[in-house]
């Protein structure tokens, strides 16, 4: 599961993430993080046998968790299916379908934003 973790200023100095990894059987991948003393956000992917318990723990510790289905969104009106983004994706999350439509795989996407900045029609956006 992918989710945004929102850190309030009151918890930025707590070691929630390392405690989580020590105490629960979770696989945890940080895709993006921007945390300052004023709070911040972290995009993570979490799985493992105790993922559910781990999430409950994070929420108990004060991290607000917003699960996301989509890391990036494609505007079908703007996208002209050129494919410029395909070779820029570091995790092969973009491919050309059999009918030459550009498809994004949100399972693979890590939200690096390379496609969003390179799209000639700005058709791809990072989902909030």
């Amino acid at each position, binding site marked *: 599961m992918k989710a945004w973790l929102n850190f309030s200023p009151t918890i930025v100095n707590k070691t929630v993430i390392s405690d989580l990894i020590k105490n629960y059987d979770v696989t945890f991948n940080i895709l993006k993080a921007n945390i300052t003393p004023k709070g911040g956000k972290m995009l993570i992917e979490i799985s493992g046998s105790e993922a559910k318990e781990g999430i409950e723990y994070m929420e108990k510790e004060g991290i607000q968790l917003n699960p996301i289905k989509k890391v990036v969104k494609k505007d079908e009106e703007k996208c*002209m*299916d*050129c*494919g*410029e*983004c*395909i*070779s*820029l*994706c570091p995790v*092969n999350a973009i*491919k*050309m379908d059999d*009918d*030459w*439509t550009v498809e994004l795989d949100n399972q693979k996407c890590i939200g690096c934003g*390379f496609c969003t*900045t*390179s799209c*000639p*029609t*700005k058709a791809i956006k990072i989902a909030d």
Partner: protein
Amino acid sequence: MCGLNSLEIINNIISFLSQDYHYKKAPDVKRVKTIEEINQKIKDGDAVVVTASEMTRIVQENGAGEAAREVDVVTTGTFGAMCSSGAFFNFGHSDPPIKMSRTYLNGVEAYSGLAAVDAYLGATQPHRNPDIGLDYGGAHILEDLIRGKEVELVAEAYGTDCYPRTEVHTFLSLEDLNQAVMVNPRNCYQNYAAATNSTEETIYTYMGTLLPQMGNVSYSSAGKLSPLLNDPYFQTIGMGTRIFMCGSQGYILGEGTQHATEGERKNGVPIDSSGTLMLKGDMKKMDAEYVRGATMPKYGPTLYVGAGIPIPVLNEEIAQRTGISDQDISCNIYDYGVPRRSRPAVMETNYQELRTGKIEINGNEVQTSPLSSFKKALQVAEELKKWIDNGEFFLTSPVKSLPSSGCTVKPLQIKRPSIMVRDLKIKPVITARAEEAISGVARKMVDNNVNHLPVVDHADRLMGIVTSWDIAHAVAKDSRKLTEVMTKKVIVAMEDEPVELIARRIDKHEISGVPIVDRENRVKGMITAEDISRLICSQNNKEGGSK
């Protein structure tokens, strides 16, 4: 209307007598059909129209002879970034009238140095506000107008007795314009280079974003669907040919700018950019589905143009040529990391390989990206096919053929040649050795009045660079070793590079100077922003004096 004409009757008799007679006994390239006959079939609803993609399969399966007899028209299509595009507008006269000398549409300048209320808006013109700059330019306005959106017109003038008004500020849409004629000086390139980047940094080009160390490859041509690759010797496509242009019926005005005919060919088609077309169409009849304003990141605005050209299958040779496959169309991958006119070719490939999405370069698998939309190109070819099937579009004989030989593209000769790095008066090079003490390096800088010091090994080979700021840093942090404070990834200049290139490099990396090295990475000197500004000053003085 007299139905079948004599040639068709003869052909029918021949094929009745022997199904294969025409193919086997007369595999010549003479006309088996005329454009008039095809147009008659279109009128009668009997014409056989296929896309270039379908034609590839038909020729592969049935051979060119049978294809020539069965198929009447092959529709081609492309939907790619075509920078050399734009439109003429006539705004109509205000009261009192104005002779516009500077004209802006939504803040993008259109050239109005022609008559009073005519202007030409180029697709790649950036917005005049540098904060918007490349994100919204001429191409976006062309799309907005076709979408029926209202745009702001601002014009300035110097005022004359007959045109007293000196400024205009109003809003208008496509229907308010007297004329809005898209005239694209160079479209539909017959093949084009593929691009990669061998340098250590990401570069942003008209071929899209190119990752470092040949991290990706981009390519542009629609391959087997591309109009001029289906008629590589311009046997049917010429001046006056009616075409599909951005969803409307447009025309070919003639060969485009930079039209070239002498490049290397394989399987009859050029392996590099070659022929081009100048197109004209009425924007008022265009469909926004087939035109798009876009921005190549950090390069600028460009117009995606949907263009499709019908090719009458007049004989077996034309059938053979329209049957070309992606595998038969080769192209070179060039290194866009070299910002010179002649870029080195990395390797040759073909469109079948490029379309698989990956390619092998020097043993590494590299992902490929098309820049033009194959889906849209197919849509263009399908739509044109539909028009012909429905009897809404008829073929034309060219008024004049496009030149198919003798055209080469001349480079621009700069009469005042570029000054090369080696031509600069370079001060004797002062360097530091990696093992030198910080205090010694500081003294060296002060004694020689320099702010940069290349750090070299025993053979004068570049290891890093330190600035006076780095030394201040070292003192503040109590670092002892030069290697701790020096910058190891050094931006350099080569002796055989033009100074303009170094100026761009210094600006891009926001640095104040670069060491000059030779091929063996031995330090030859330093070139600083100061050196360059002094050079510009002295050149300007020289020019001023010679007047």
